[in-house]
């Protein structure tokens, strides 16, 4: 059993390794455009260089701070409003249609108007991340509450559940599977919105690093940013998985 898992562990790295080999082959045997690719060694050198002079750490920290601030505000607001429109008919009438309407507009289409009002600094990045996260959390929280088994409502009234019990013992835990799907999607759109915002923002962050590198054709730098995003993406996934494993114990039986 343990052996089988170990073998599986090795196999999942097979394609990434092949991709790196493909990268090297393309660089040295490909056409002139492919020769623009950085050599793996160059990427490593660039990493060390930027790490020692502190710029890499700066960019990562700035981006991470924007990402998590945006995540916090977006998630709290999305979860709260999703619960509200899910539970309260009045809130549903007033808010749901409006929010669903704004959701249909592609998020990046808001960027021009936001730049006009907010400029291209920190605020824009945080706001855009919040927006991406908000819609993911809102939609899935709302769907989670709406899709609760209506039979449980009857059960709750027959068994004299108080409003508090109805909320904390049925609505909150019952909607959690869908909410956690929302978290997973939110983490994805968090990085996406961050890149979009940072590629136009002033002078810091990973998105800035990538778009700046493009202007100077610093391919190694562009690759480095891609690797960092891949790493953060994977981390987000691990965190989402861990949350699901913990909170949905009752389902994994």
């Amino acid at each position, binding site marked *: 059993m343990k052996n089988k898992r170990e073998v599986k562990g090795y196999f999942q790295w097979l394609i990434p390794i092949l991709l790196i080999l493909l990268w090297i082959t393309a660089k040295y045997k490909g056409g002139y455009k492919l020769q623009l690719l950085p050599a793996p060694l160059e990427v490593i050198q660039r990493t060390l260089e930027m790490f020692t002079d502190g710029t890499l750490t700066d960019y990562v920290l700035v981006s991470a701070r924007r990402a998590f601030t945006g995540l916090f505000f977006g998630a709290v607001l999305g979860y709260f409003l999703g619960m509200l429109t899910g539970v309260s008919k009045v809130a549903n009438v007033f808010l749901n249609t409006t929010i669903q309407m704004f959701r249909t507009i592609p998020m990046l289409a808001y960027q021009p108007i936001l730049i006009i009002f907010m400029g291209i600094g920190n605020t824009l990045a945080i706001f855009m991340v919040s927006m991406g996260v908000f819609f993911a959390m809102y939609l899935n929280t709302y769907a989670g509450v709406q899709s609760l088994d209506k039979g449980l409502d009857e059960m709750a009234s027959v068994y*004299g559940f108080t409003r508090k*019990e109805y909320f904390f013992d*049925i609505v909150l835990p*019952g909607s959690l599977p869908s909410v956690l799907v929302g978290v997973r999607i939110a983490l994805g759109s968090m990085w996406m919105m961050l890149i979009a915002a940072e590629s136009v923002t002033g002078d810091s962050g990973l998105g800035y690093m990538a778009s700046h590198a493009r202007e100077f054709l610093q391919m190694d730098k562009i690759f480095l940013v891609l690797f960092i995003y891949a790493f953060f993406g994977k981390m987000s996934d691990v965190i989402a998985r861990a949350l699901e494993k913990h909170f949905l114990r009752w*389902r994994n039986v």
Partner: protein
Amino acid sequence: MSGISIQGKKVSKQFGDLKVLEGVDFRVEPGEFVAIVGRSGCGKSTLLRLITYLETVTDGEILVDDKPVNAINSDIRFVFQDPRLLMWKSALRNVVLGSPGRSEEDARKALRRVGLEGREKDWPGVLSGGQRQRLSLARALVGQPRALLLDEPLGALDALTRIEMQRLIERLWKEQNFTAILVTHDVSEAVLLADHVIVMDEHKIVKTIKIELSRPRVRNNDFAYYEQEILKYIMKNETGKEETDYVI
């Protein structure tokens, strides 16, 4: 605590233009076990829901303990066809939430009574279909209700588990002396458990049959006689049609 009387006077129920019950009269004595049988759509489940106040009557009235029903009453518990458990709460918590005082001690006792001792911490997800229905039975009985309404609770179970559950329900009914009303489309289940069988057809009660067999009941000739007797009233329409066919 002893059972409660349940009575219906000219009870009618309509959903929009759809008539579900038309002037139904019945009386269930305290501590009695009554089964309601009939085809699907005859209104038998609706009758239970009216008694619980999950629905309200269009006309007529329902009396519990000779008082008109106007709210959900914690003396009357309802067991649904699907167990309707909180899958994210342990077996014990599910039962605790059924007890009027949210008492953990009572919940443990109730679990013991239905044979789920030792499963307190388990999620409902790991229990079998029969065990889940036991759990919902424990949740219904934890507060020592004076009436238990069962809406085809065994419909989804396999034959052997059904027999086991029928015995359990009969035992609990004897121990706790509540009034029981069981809605079922299984005629033999009705004869096995009930003191009186109410036969419903096309939104009305067509016959009430007293089952005079000693308990525990065995499926002998007398048992079969009652089954036939009940089936006669349910299948009445069909046989009627066949007869006219022969005449022509």
